[in-house]
């Protein structure tokens, strides 16, 4: 029996439920009333006494379900308590994990963690060593200013011990940091405790408020944005975020492929986001452009998808009939290279970034290098670059061989675009049906190279749906996401990707983690997946990563859309 469940993921951060007397939504602040601790064995003279104490603890457990903290250090005592209640194990980073099925793991001496490297390494190490569906508790570590970072690193449970104690030392916490109360000319908080001078209570309140906000950020899928902001409190937190971003595997395996919210690319760290790297990497490795001779490079627009913007409408009308010869690639920061067929895919249609016309060196290098990699793999006879300003300069400086029109949306500028395209399109091959190309591109993007050809073979598009020659729907596209029908799934099955294999039962509505026998490692929350067993075929959206489905004993693995016995 398990008493913790992860409900939602936003990068390594999770929203979960800890089932005690009351259901607690994590990340949470745990209070001493929520748990019963067997305590450190060093409270006893010897192991015999420690074991007796365990017995008396078990017998005297209060009514109502509490978290039971096993005696620690566990590796010295190995005293398990067999009880129908959530169990917590106190663990040290780096030491082997003696008990694999606790609900909560308590990081011993977490409060002594200091510095960016220590924090990131310790938390990643412990998080990677405990099961994904267990909660991680870091005692005496959280403050209002570091809380969002802790949660973003993967912490589920914190406490108010540190800030309360700080309060007794007249240390005043806000989300902006830690201050000596009497060095503040005015208290920047109007809570009742500030009026009455109760700094410990104020500190706890601030921690609680920050926690509510962090939970809200996870719900709306915006924690990354908040963390990018909040780590500016102090350089070591900024360093921690940068170090975390170098842990690419840790981050990538935990980051959903889709969010409902706008992605703000507001900082230099935004370039390192999983969403950004993953998008470009998929364009370079999974996506294949249609057979085409002419590539048109266009600037991005504030409005998304680009084609709904005024500027792109003007480009389109300037292209006129030549559109069917031209493949379009939009250059942008931070996504670098967005093929037209993928413009509505997450996050291409979901980002916003400060627009000043300036491209800094990192952005330039990122877009140029991505474009060069793209052009190395995908050859065109002619390239027309309808770009202006610094982006245009960057391409020229980067040695991209193209017809440069100078960009712009004025009548003369569009005329130059038209003329350049006319020249470029002379004797060019026409590209096939754009809507079909879109299905092909997205299938490749979502399921890997080759999926597009298999899915679209002999198929045709009507509205937002793909039909096979017999008129059966294979897939549909909504807001840039692909949804497979069972017929579509059958076509992709031989590829062996994005498959969740379940046990011998017929799921309804959802597939729960314990039912998963195996799952493609590539699967991330939000991905379209195919659910199979010997008796069942279904399609749906993954709610957790593939590795997590395999390792978890609780939680929704897949939300089914369709399914049938086979």
């Amino acid at each position: 029996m398990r008493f913790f469940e992860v409900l939602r993921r936003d990068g390594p951060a999770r929203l979960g439920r800890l089932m005690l007397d009351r259901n607690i939504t994590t990340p949470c602040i745990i209070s001493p009333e929520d748990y019963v601790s067997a305590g450190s064995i060093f409270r006893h003279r010897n192991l015999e006494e420690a074991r007796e104490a365990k017995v008396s603890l078990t017998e005297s457990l209060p009514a109502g379900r509490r978290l039971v903290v096993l005696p620690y250090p566990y590796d010295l005592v190995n005293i398990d308590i067999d009880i129908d209640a959530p169990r917590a194990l106190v663990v040290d980073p780096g030491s082997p994990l003696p008990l694999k099925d606790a609900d909560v793991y308590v990081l011993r001496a977490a409060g002594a963690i200091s510095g960016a490297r220590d924090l990131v390494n310790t938390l990643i190490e412990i998080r990677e060593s405990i099961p994904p569906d267990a909660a991680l508790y870091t005692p005496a570590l959280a403050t209002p200013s570091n809380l969002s970072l802790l949660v973003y690193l993967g912490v589920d449970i914190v406490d108010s011990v540190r800030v309360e104690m700080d309060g007794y030392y007249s240390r005043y916490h806000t989300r902006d940091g830690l201050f000596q109360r009497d060095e503040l000319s005015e208290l920047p908080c109007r809570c009742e405790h500030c009026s009455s001078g109760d700094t410990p209570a104020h500190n706890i309140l601030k921690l609680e408020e920050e926690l509510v906000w962090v939970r809200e950020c996870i719900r709306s899928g915006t924690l990354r944005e908040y963390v990018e902001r909040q780590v500016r409190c102090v350089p070591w937190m900024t360093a921690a975020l940068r170090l975390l971003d170098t842990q690419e595997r840790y981050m990538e395996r935990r980051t959903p492929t889709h969010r409902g919210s706008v992605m703000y690319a507001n900082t230099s760290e935004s370039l390192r986001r999983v969403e950004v790297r993953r998008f470009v990497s998929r364009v370079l490795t999974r996506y294949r452009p249609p057979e085409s001779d002419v590539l048109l490079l266009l600037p991005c627009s504030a409005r998304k998808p680009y084609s709904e913007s005024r500027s792109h409408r003007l480009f389109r009308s300037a292209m006129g009939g030549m559109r069917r010869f031209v493949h379009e690639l939009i250059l942008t920061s931070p996504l670098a290279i967005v093929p037209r067929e993928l413009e509505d895919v997450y996050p291409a249609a979901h980002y916003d970034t400060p627009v000043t016309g300036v491209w800094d060196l990192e952005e330039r290098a990122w877009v140029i290098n991505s474009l060069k990699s793209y052009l190395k793999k995908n050859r065109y006879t002619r390239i027309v670059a309808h770009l202006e300003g610094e982006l245009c300069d960057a391409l020229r400086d980067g040695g991209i061989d193209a017809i440069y029109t100078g960009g712009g949306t004025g009548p003369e500028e569009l005329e130059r675009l038209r003329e350049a395209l006319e020249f470029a399109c002379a004797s060019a091959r026409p590209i096939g049906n754009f809507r079909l190309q879109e299905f092909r591109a997205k299938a490749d993007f979502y399921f890997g190279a080759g999926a597009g050809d298999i899915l679209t073979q002999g198929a045709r598009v009507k509205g937002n749906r793909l039909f096979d020659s017999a008129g059966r729907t294979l897939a549909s596209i909504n807001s840039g996401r692909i949804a497979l029908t069972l017929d579509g799934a059958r076509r992709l099955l031989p590829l062996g990707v994005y498959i969740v294999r379940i046990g011998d039962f017929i799921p309804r509505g959802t597939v729960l983690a314990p039912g998963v026998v195996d799952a493609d490692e590539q699967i991330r929350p939000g991905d379209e997946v195919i659910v199979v067993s010997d008796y069942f075929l279904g399609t749906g959206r993954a709610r957790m990563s593939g590795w997590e489905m395999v390792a978890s004993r609780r939680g929704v693995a897949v939300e089914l859309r369709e399914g049938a016995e086979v």
Partner: protein
Amino acid sequence: MKSARSPVAVWRGRDLFDGRVAESTTVILRTRGCRWNRCVMCGYAQEGVDASAEDIIAQFRSILDKVEGAELVKIYTSGSFLDPAEVPEAARLEILRSLRDMDVRRLVIESRPEYIDRLALEQILSFLDAEIGIGLESSSDLVRTYLINKGFTFFDFTGASDMIHSLGGRVKTYLLLKPPGLSEMEAIADAMRSARDAEPYSDIISLNLCNVQRNTPLERMWQRGGYRPPWLWSAVEVLREASLKIPVICDPVGAGARRGPHNCGTCDGYVAAAIRSFSLSQSRADLNVDCSCRSVWRKVLELEDLSFGVPLV
């Protein structure tokens, strides 16, 4: 300049002696140091040099004038006086002779239990009354083994104590207040229980307040924020509440320093003084001191128990 011919230190003082206050001399001899030398908080052995019997005799002779008139002489070695590898028998014999010749009433030495053997004890007691200090630190074998790494058991301690008592010697038991790995509250409880456990085997108990010595495992723990020396209030608490029939003394070495036992910085001086007074008087009234930081300390007792192994400085 560590010369094998001069002791580490020597000083005169006043000590509790069978219920009254007496003149004392304390000598710290420079030896090769403790052969165990693995306790997490101990940095004494770094003072060590290879000292021969002649060296040690020379050290002792050089401070004979400071012994003149003392009823009580304490000879410490940053190790075990009874370890023949540290203090060769020849040196021990010479020291004992001198002390007897100078009419010293009692000798206080320290030793780990494994060096406390019948022959050595009989030899010493044949010269003068002796009190053997043993660093029990805690009566919990778990604390002593895993947190201090002391390397002997409570059973080893009681065995040594029984032998000393059977030969007419006295036992002074050292307890360590707040070994690393205990919360402030746990440390108090550990010290109180240890005192009660040790009482039947001791003639006097000395409560040592843990301090952070250089180049020790404890120092590294402290530098990383993993340890805070005990509050002086904790020592006051133990001294006041222990309620033993034997004396309990305490010298708060390094009180008020960041590395030593300390309270808030304001009251450290007078609280340490109160503890020293109590050590001589054994009168609880001497411990009636207060400061506004006492309420902070009470919160520390409460909250540090929730921190799973980290001090809340």
